[in-house]
């Protein structure tokens, strides 16, 4: 059968300034999509725009800044507010492939971003703001189950603690790296997150990809995930970790499993995931041993038993309509931490239609869950990690004020090491060497550099968080946690304000 | 301690640098019958062709000897060596005492038995002065016969041809540049030279040079040469460039042992204590042949010089032995050959590849998993890596298949070997 002629116009324009281009072919070598072609006879570089994904690798690496890559300058004339260019292209693509459209990263649909509809408070006159450059400013956070009260024996030599505290994770800053599996990203990326976590006193999360033996040395900063595929799960995996996370759902694809194509399953990955080389790694939509809350409870306690109750167990769910009730059930089922992943959370690969249409924003889910747990008087019993598209330190501060103990960041972390959110992760050809296993491309992440960039990001955000805390006259993060009086809403409906549990600005 | 070095070419330079690295102030005297500071003999053809300036001919420049605090006695010939009383006698009756002496007198051109020599425009091609003579006598020269199809013969030939002189090379052997090359490589080069208009006659030699009558006014001029085969070739210049033999005049009649060259041990010392020899004058260990040979090549001379220097200065340093290697470039065609590239014995594995259109020739010789020699024509960029494999005696068994790749280099090494080379260099 003859190849279908594609009607899809290119997404991007590649402009090459002839006065600047020295035909050094750096772009040719950097483009893993072969959008740049070297013409030997002419000693010139040409472009095939239809192949360009707009990742900007070439523009960044071009030594003479001869390149500009931007959205195609002849947008589809037919496009309108309803039939956008994007929608038209999707239809064409499916007409030509007849398949499910895949995509990567978080949804780019213009759902309201509530972070940008909340503003923070600051001290004036009646109480002093605190200068973090001169005064101590504490971000240390402990994640894990807390008792409602402590019991002491009061002896002559002072009180002695009777209560035994459940295992806790100690964070020097309330930010963790969210689950990204080895397989979705390269080993170097994992190593970088592990090293950065160690340096910053926080944690990274293996996702469902298992933990490479070389990274066991970072176990104290590692949260290992137990997902529906159970990839890479064995005793040593659980033993080496600081905490365990049962993955129920992911914000980018609630209700959907995972699928790592066989070509990404290299020798090392097969070792780590404990599956044969080259076989597709398919994680089922549900855990087939969890069809109910009591099943979840059994798994939670199975894991606690397996690790002698020495590690907190986290349960990660996607933010969906009745997250609050689900969360309450999860806490009562014995989870020490719940992670809630909002609709803007990222993914290495998901059906576009799922990513863009399933789930709810983290802001609303977080507010609802925190309030529900307080109403039920069980908020102490579990820590809350909010996830799903955190972009900056203000998002983090607002999440903590809404009630989160800490936040998971993943997209921001990847952006820090080069990701340009081109959404092509699922192709495995990431020109930035992040979501790929291609031996040539993985070298593009040098863990020394990436670790530095990640540590810098955490440091920068932490400094900003301290500034914001100081402004509010607070010098310990726990006094912000759930302190919604420091938030005010702007341009929100009464219902939204009500769900977020905040007042409109001016009140 | 007094050092005397006889001869002032590359072996001498190697010796001076080595001596001074260990002994900063003992007097060093250098005697040379040539009036110049050490210059590059191999470059004389390029000098003739005008590729390189007078000043750039000097290896180290004038100031080198002063910097090294060395007394130079140039333009004087050492004519006697009194090994008993440790005295070197010069052709001006001058006498030099030494505690240790280095004989680095190099080679002298080999002149075949010829009739009709002693005419103008019959020149050898070994020293800078030779080249200068050729240069000075060029006007009016249309056609030259070069006797000898060896390295210097070909160099002279190319230089002359580039200067617009028609050149005929006469070589006794059945091909040019034997034994430096194998037949194939010789052929390829021969083709190339012919393309440029150089005529090559093999398996023949000049027997007689005939010329004009000589008069008081001027010496007889060359008119033609007659070959053994009877062939007669008219020409107005003859270059005798058959090659050099070790210059051993000085050791004649002394108790210093010699064969085809002066014999030395692995410290470059002769059989007589405190008398060392280095460079083309010696006959020394070749670790590929496992015997001692005369191998008149420049890098070897430098190395022997510095080994000799170190040992003279009291530093025990063994000479690892060398092997034959040549890098030739004629008319932009690079050719390299090293080691046993054409073994006569059995038991060698020989890999060859020939790409006529690109004129790429690659020949490797292996034995028991070790590289023993090679010839490469054309893509020589990474040939040094092969030389390294021979020199460092690295077993190539497990990456043999890569060896024949044109771009074979460090990238084709097994990782551990490459790391060892790159990370520890």
């Amino acid at each position, binding site marked *: 059968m003859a190849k279908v002629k594609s009607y899809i116009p290119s997404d991007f324009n590649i402009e090459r300034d002839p006065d600047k281009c020295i035909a050094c072919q750096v772009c040719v070598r950097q483009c893993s999509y072969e959008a740049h072609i070297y013409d030997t006879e002419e000693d010139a570089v040409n472009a095939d725009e239809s192949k360009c994904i707009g990742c900007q690798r070439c523009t960044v690496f071009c030594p003479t800044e001869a390149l500009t890559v931007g959205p195609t300058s002849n947008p589809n004339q037919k496009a309108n507010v309803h039939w956008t260019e994007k929608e038209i292209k999707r239809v064409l693509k499916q007409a030509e492939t007849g398949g499910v459209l895949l995509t990567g990263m978080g949804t780019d649909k213009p759902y309201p971003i509530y972070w940008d509809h909340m503003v923070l408070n600051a001290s004036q006159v009646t109480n002093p703001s605190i200068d973090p450059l001169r005064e101590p400013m504490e971000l240390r956070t402990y994640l894990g189950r807390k008792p409602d009260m402590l019991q002491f024996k009061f002896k002559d030599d002072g009180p002695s603690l009777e209560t035994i505290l459940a295992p806790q994770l100690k964070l020097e800053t309330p930010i963790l790296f969210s689950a990204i599996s080895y397989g979705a990203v390269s080993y170097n990326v994992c190593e970088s997150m592990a090293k950065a976590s160690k340096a910053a006193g926080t944690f990274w999360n293996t996702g469902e990809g298992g933990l490479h033996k070389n990274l066991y040395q970072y176990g104290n900063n590692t949260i290992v995930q137990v997902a529906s595929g159970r990839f890479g799960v064995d005793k040593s995996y659980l033993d080496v970790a600081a905490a365990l996370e049962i993955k129920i759902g992911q914000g980018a694809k609630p209700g959907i499993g995972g699928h790592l194509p066989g070509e990404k399953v290299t020798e090392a990955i097969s070792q780590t995931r404990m599956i044969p080389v080259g076989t597709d790694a398919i994680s089922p939509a549900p855990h087939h041993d969890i069809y109910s809350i009591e099943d979840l409870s059994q798994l939670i306690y199975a894991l606690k038993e397996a690790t002698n109750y020495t590690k907190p167990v986290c349960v990660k769910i996607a933010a969906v309509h009745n997250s609050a009730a689900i969360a309450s059930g999860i806490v009562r089922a014995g989870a020490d931490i719940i992670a809630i992943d909002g609709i803007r959370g990222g993914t290495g690969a998901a059906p576009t239609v799922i990513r863009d249409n399933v789930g709810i924003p983290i802001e609303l889910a977080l507010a609802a869950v925190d309030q529900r747990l307080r109403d039920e008087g069980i908020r102490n019993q579990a820590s809350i990690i909010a996830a799903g598209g955190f972009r900056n330190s203000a998002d983090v501060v607002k999440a903590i004020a809404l009630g989160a103990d800490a936040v998971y960041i993943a997209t921001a972390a990847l952006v820090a090491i080069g990701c340009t959110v081109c959404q092509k992760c699922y192709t495995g050809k990431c020109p930035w060497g992040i979501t790929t296993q291609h031996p040539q491309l993985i070298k593009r992440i040098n863990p020394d550099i990436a670790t530095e960039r990640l540590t810098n990001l955490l440091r920068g955000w932490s400094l900003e968080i301290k500034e914001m805390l100081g402004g509010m006259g607070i010098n310990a993060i726990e006094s912000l946690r759930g*302190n919604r009086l420091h938030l005010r809403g702007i341009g929100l409906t009464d219902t939204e304000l009500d769900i977020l549990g905040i007042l409109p600005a001016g009140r | 301690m007094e050092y005397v070095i006889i001869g002032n070419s590359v072996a001498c330079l190697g010796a001076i640098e080595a001596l001074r690295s260990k002994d900063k102030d003992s007097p060093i005297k250098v005697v040379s019958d040539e009036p110049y500071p050490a210059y590059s003999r191999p470059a004389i053809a390029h000098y003739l062709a005008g590729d390189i300036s007078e000043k750039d001919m000097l290896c180290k420049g004038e100031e080198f000897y002063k910097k090294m605090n060395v007394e130079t006695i140039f333009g004087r010939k050492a004519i006697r060596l009194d090994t008993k009383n440790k005295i070197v006698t010069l052709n001006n009756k001058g006498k030099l005492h030494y505690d240790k002496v280095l004989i680095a007198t190099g080679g002298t051109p080999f002149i075949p038995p010829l009739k009709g020599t002693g005419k103008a425009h019959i020149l050898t091609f070994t020293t800078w002065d030779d080249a200068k003579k050729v240069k000075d006598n060029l006007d009016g020269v249309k056609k030259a016969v070069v006797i000898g199809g060896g390295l210097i013969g070909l160099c002279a030939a190319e230089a002359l041809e580039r200067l617009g002189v028609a050149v005929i090379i006469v070589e006794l052997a059945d091909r040019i540049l034997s034994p430096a090359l194998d037949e194939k490589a010789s052929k390829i080069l021969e083709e190339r030279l012919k393309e440029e208009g150089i005529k090559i006659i093999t398996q023949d030699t000049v027997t007689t040079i005939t010329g004009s009558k000589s008069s008081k006014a001027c010496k007889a001029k060359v008119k033609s040469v007659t070959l053994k085969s009877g062939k007669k070739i008219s020409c107005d210049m003859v270059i005798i460039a058959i090659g050099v033999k070790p210059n051993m005049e000085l050791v004649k009649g002394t108790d210093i042992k010699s064969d085809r060259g002066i014999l030395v041990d692995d410290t470059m010392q002769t059989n007589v204590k405190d008398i060392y020899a280095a460079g083309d004058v010696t006959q020394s260990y070749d670790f590929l042949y496992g015997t001692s040979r005369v191998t008149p090549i420049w890098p070897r001379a430098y190395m022997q010089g510095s080994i000799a220097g170190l040992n003279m200065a009291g530093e025990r340093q063994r000479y690892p032995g060398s092997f034959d290697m040549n890098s030739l470039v004629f008319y932009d065609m690079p050719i390299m050959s090293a080691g046993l590239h054409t073994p006569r014995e059995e038991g060698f594995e020989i890999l060859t590849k020939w790409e006529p259109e690109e004129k790429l020739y690659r020949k490797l010789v292996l034995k028991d998993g070790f590289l023993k020699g090679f010839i490469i024509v054309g893509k020589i960029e990474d040939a040094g890596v092969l030389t390294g494999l021979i020199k460092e005696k690295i077993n190539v068994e497990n990456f043999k298949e890569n060896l024949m790749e044109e771009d074979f280099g460090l990238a084709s090494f097994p990782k551990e070997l490459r790391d060892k080379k790159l990370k520890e260099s």
Partner: protein
Amino acid sequence: MRLKSFEKDISGCSLTGFIHQDGRRVTGEDIMKSIACMHDRSNGLGGGFAAYGIYPDFKDHYALHLLYDSMKSKEETEHYLNQNFLIDMEEKIPTRKTPAIKNPPILWRYFLNPKRETREEAGLSDDDFVVNAVMKINSEMDGAFVMSSGKNMGAFKAVGFPEEVGEFYRLEEYKAWTWIAHGRFPTNTPGWWGGAHPFTLLDRAIVHNGEISSYGINKRYLEMFGYKCTLMTDTEVMAYLFDLLLRRHKLSIPLACKILAAPFWTDIERMEPREQELMRVLRIVYGSGLANGPFAILLGHSNGLVGLNDRVKLRPLVVARKNETVYMSSEESGIREICPELDEVWAPKAGEPVIAELKNKNI
């Protein structure tokens, strides 16, 4: 939390107090002098006192000081009280007419104990039963407010300058071993009588100078334990925090203070292992109880007096001792005014509680 609107009572203040550790009881004159001398730290929008040991004849009864807006609210409340308590004595709280104190509410005091059967039905201790009643009255009974509910103690508060309030309540006629006083400087709506300090629950009375930036989370934390913070004041939150920690969680006063004014992690790391672990766990579990922001408080209770500053000491507090008496005040002047010659005077460190107790706990 479902907030319709939020106007938190922000105020600066003066506070003072003393305890005769030997149990010697003195009239209200000293305390009035002391607070009066810091007149300009308050603005006439509220003043109040708490006194311990004033009702020796009823020391086994809960003494409820109530203020009513109307007879209607009084009847309603008394109906509720009669249902749940045995009232052995009740009377109007004696006051004197002063020009400064305008249209006072109905002020009434009751000496009572819970009815055994009702209490047992509820399955509560006496204290819990009383606390519930206080919560109910303050949040549900329109126009009724409980000023104090402890045994052998009482709170006296009003809108006005503290010295006027003292004169109004004829404090020179009461004798107590512990007196605390407060002069208020609200920066928002004119204070109302209930909004004046001290805030009390059972025998604990708190006077407070400061603003708690952690109010939002302290409040939500308390709400998880059933407290209703209706008054929108930091002081109320402080009072309830102490109630939760001391009465319900049975922590000691020093521990409670380490929760409200938690030491910094860097300081904790410098402590010896056992204390270190103790403080670490305390912060981990009671983080939401940390009162973050500037404050100085005096906490009066049956057995003593406690002074505490926030963890970075952003509000003044001076402590002094003379023989058996310990003085605590916003300003040293407030102390020198009533006791010029002192054995020692010092300013307590940030977050370091000053705890003075009666020598003989069962007077």
